[in-house]
């Protein structure tokens, strides 16, 4: 199987209905949460999806997990179209794609012990009675850095620190030996001193277990050192995608440039001019005409209001959607 086609997303859209603008109005308003997203993921690759809140990152994650049904577009996994599988057909797939959620304080059931939490995926997938069930659980926990596993097994979530809880979530994902981990803001709720431990863990797993990671975050700074590629999202679309170095050192889209400029640099001697955008991501009900970034774009030109910029290829790996790049 070609490694290029491990996970392939094309023209993915999700429009939620948002009620009617007026009581008797005919047309239903739509939230364009995800509005034409495409990218591919290679085996054991780490891709960072970066964007502000409301840009559709979390909806995209739910679509990839099959927890929401897309309005349009396709998702292929290992060449097979998985866009509209039902729960039953998806079962085997669920084993291969696992998710890590933002809030480790909320994503664990407070009434279960750590052992029950990490064992649960095995039970769900019918491996409850395999002879090596306990070994699998221990291995997953130790791979997730909960060493020695015995110390943690009989504890409850509230007896662990934030970093340890996130490790439990990761262990519960690892126990099924997945091929992709989708991590939605996995460290933004954690203290800086333990953020690194979770990021380092994910970085290790891709090497030891060949797991590909989709890392969703609003903070480009937090994935700087371990993502291979970055996709920057704005209002439901990818506006720039490229390798980490291309995007960090040679950003082409005005939005990417602004995002990079506001990442805090931990050195007062390097204080620099920041491009602080005015306002916030507009409501995805009324997507602006033309380039959807034009109302906030500091370098917009007249034509930006009318024409939607196409994806411009800048190098084999680097693409961006801005009219200024169209030659």
């Amino acid at each position, binding site marked *: 199987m070609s490694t290029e086609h491990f996970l392939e997303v094309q023209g993915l859209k999700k429009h939620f209905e948002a009620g009617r603008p007026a009581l008797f109005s005919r047309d239903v308003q739509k939230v364009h949460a995800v509005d034409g997203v495409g990218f591919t993921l290679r085996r054991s690759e780490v891709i960072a999806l970066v964007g502000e809140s409301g840009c559709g990152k979390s909806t995209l994650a739910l679509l990839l997990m099959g927890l929401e049904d897309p309005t349009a577009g396709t998702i292929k996994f290992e060449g097979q179209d998985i866009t509209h599988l039902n729960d039953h057909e998806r079962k085997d797939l669920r084993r291969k794609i696992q998710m890590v959620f933002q809030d480790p304080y909320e994503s664990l059931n407070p009434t279960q012990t750590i052992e029950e939490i990490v064992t649960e995926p095995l039970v769900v997938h019918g491996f409850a009675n395999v002879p090596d069930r306990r070994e699998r659980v221990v291995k997953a926990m130790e791979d997730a850095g909960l060493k020695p596993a015995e110390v943690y097994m009989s504890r409850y979530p509230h007896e662990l620190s934030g970093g340890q809880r996130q490790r439990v979530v990761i262990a519960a994902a690892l126990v099924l030996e997945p091929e992709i981990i989708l991590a939605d803001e996995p460290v933004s709720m954690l*203290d800086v001193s333990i953020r690194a431990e979770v990021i380092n863990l994910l970085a290790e797993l891709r090497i030891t277990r060949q797991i590909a990671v989709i890392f969703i975050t609003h903070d480009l700074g937090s994935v700087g050192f371990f993502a291979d590629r970055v996709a920057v999202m704005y209002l439901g679309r990818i506006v720039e995608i490229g390798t980490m170095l291309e995007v960090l050192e040679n950003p082409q889209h005005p939005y990417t440039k602004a995002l990079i400029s506001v990442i805090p640099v931990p050195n007062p001697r390097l204080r620099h001019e920041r491009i602080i955008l005015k306002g916030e991501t507009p409501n995805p009900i009324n997507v602006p005409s033309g380039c959807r970034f034009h109302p906030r774009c500091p370098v917009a030109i007249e034509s930006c209001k009318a024409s939607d910029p196409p994806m411009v290829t800048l190098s084999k790996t680097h693409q961006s959607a801005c009219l200024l790049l169209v030659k």
Partner: protein
Amino acid sequence: MQTTLQNTSPNKTASQLFNFWESFKKSGTGVVGLYMIIVILILAIFAPLIAPYDESSTANVGISDIYQPPSAQHWFGTDDAGQDVFSNFVYGARVSLTVGFFAAFISLIIGGSFGLIAGFFGGRWETSLMRFTDIMLVIPDLPLTVVIVALTKPSLFNIILVIGLLGWTTTARVVRSQTLAVKSRKFILRARAIGASKPHIVINHILPLVMPILVVQGVLVISLAILNESTLSFIGLGDPSVLSWGQMLNYAFGRGALSSGAWWALLVPGLGIVWIVLGLTLLGQGLEQVLNPRTDTHHLMPSRLPLSKEALVKPLHQNTLFEVQNLSIHYVGEGKAPAHAVEDVSFTLKEGELMGLVGESGCGKTTLMLALLRLLPSAGQIVNGKVFFKGKDLTSLSEEELNEIRWRGISIVFQGAMNALNPVRTVGDQITEAVMKHEPKFPKENIPARVTQLLELVGITADQRDHFPHQYSGGMRQRAMIAMALACNPDVIIADEPTTALDVMIQAQILELLDNLRKKLGLAVIFVTHDLGIVAELCDKVLVMYGGVTAEYADVDTIYNNPKHPYTQELLKAFPDLTKPKKKLSSIPGYPPRLDALPAGCRFAPRCPAAFERCHTEQPALHSIGNNNHIASCHLVEASK
């Protein structure tokens, strides 16, 4: 497919029960209720042993036995049929409990499953089930019960059935709302992502969290069922073949107990009903406290009397606006070791200066800030230290004097307050209220203009002023909070984690705002955060706290380019630096100390890569380094001097 997790060991259940009992014991009324119910249970179970006479024994009863007053033979006298009231009372407990338990069982099964199904599946299920529930809820229970029982044969079985079938509505509603609440929690989404089936999710994730509510509800439903049965029997619709307490009342009432002055025949069954209903209600309350504890809110109560009245101590530094000297704060709780939340912290602040206060969650940042204005919750006590503001010691001012300084001299943007705006009032109204409350002398007619001006200062336009909080984004809500804090033109603003939950771009906007405000208004700002990057962008000086103590305190350049405390150094290494991408981050293993069980030596010793023997036994003092107000609490610093 089997769905339960089988490794719920008996140990887990046993220890849960034990914990449950430990906390239940603390609720006095609950325990009283429990004992009251146990008494009735004993009566019911051992009725043949306890009752001196057989159930409804009419043997050897003559006309003279009717309505005998209490005596040694008949403790509670006799009734209209000459039977022993005490014996009938004891057997009556059986009837009441039977009706209560079985009717409640029916109600709970129906209400519980309706609530669960409606809450979990939503959609059409929910609409139809809840509409049905609503209809049942508006029909008054008791009259309907009366009608149905009157129309059917009044047997105990029918009574149980009717009470049970009509009494489930509140249970359905309570269970539904709890199910909805649990369903929206993240771990349910995680279970779905794992691939768990719906029955699995209901059994393993929803039920355990709905169960406590169901138990509490169950106790209340039992008492309601008992009460309903008594009412039915009292009005003559009971099962004539059994003698319940209601039945006893009915007979006594209908057969002249009142006119014969036989109060005992009424009082005993009446008290029995009151006793059991009261017992169940108390038990229900006790259970509710344990199973459904409301979270202890962070009450902003002024702390107790100032430590010392003598105003002998003077600020050490001249020309400072704000000076904190050796401040220590403990949280004390009954039967708990005091938590040393803040120990010996000092700093100064000049006009227009911006200080960053950095540290991990729980290191005492909020505690320190609340203590400056004596706004600690009642458990928090300033045990040592002084806080000077414009030369006055805030720790020794009276409450009224301090109120002059709160908001006008120093104001706080509380942590998380942007999520606590009143959802049903417009933001403009809430700011108006803040101005009126804290500046009562402000001319009324100028208030609207003032509110507009405040909002403008923080970048909110006049047309957004009458919007409700939910129409605001997180960033705008935080701006509104800052506007409120500016209401009385303070000299100092304390912003407790104002950017923590916000996106980087919005963070940058808020930082820019605070920076502009201090330039425009000459404000001094204390910026509390756990993010070292933000501090570097913005602040003049930095106080790094660890586990309640000052780790290091210096100007911003020194902190980042010449840090002396190992904690500061490690924290900087853990921070991703995009100027050096592809560098592996180092983390600090372990986690911060518990403040009620501190290590003997340096609080950072268990995690410190540079720790040596002395660190584990002796607390490092604060040492100053060089002569530009750089201090750090570390033995290494002392050694290198």
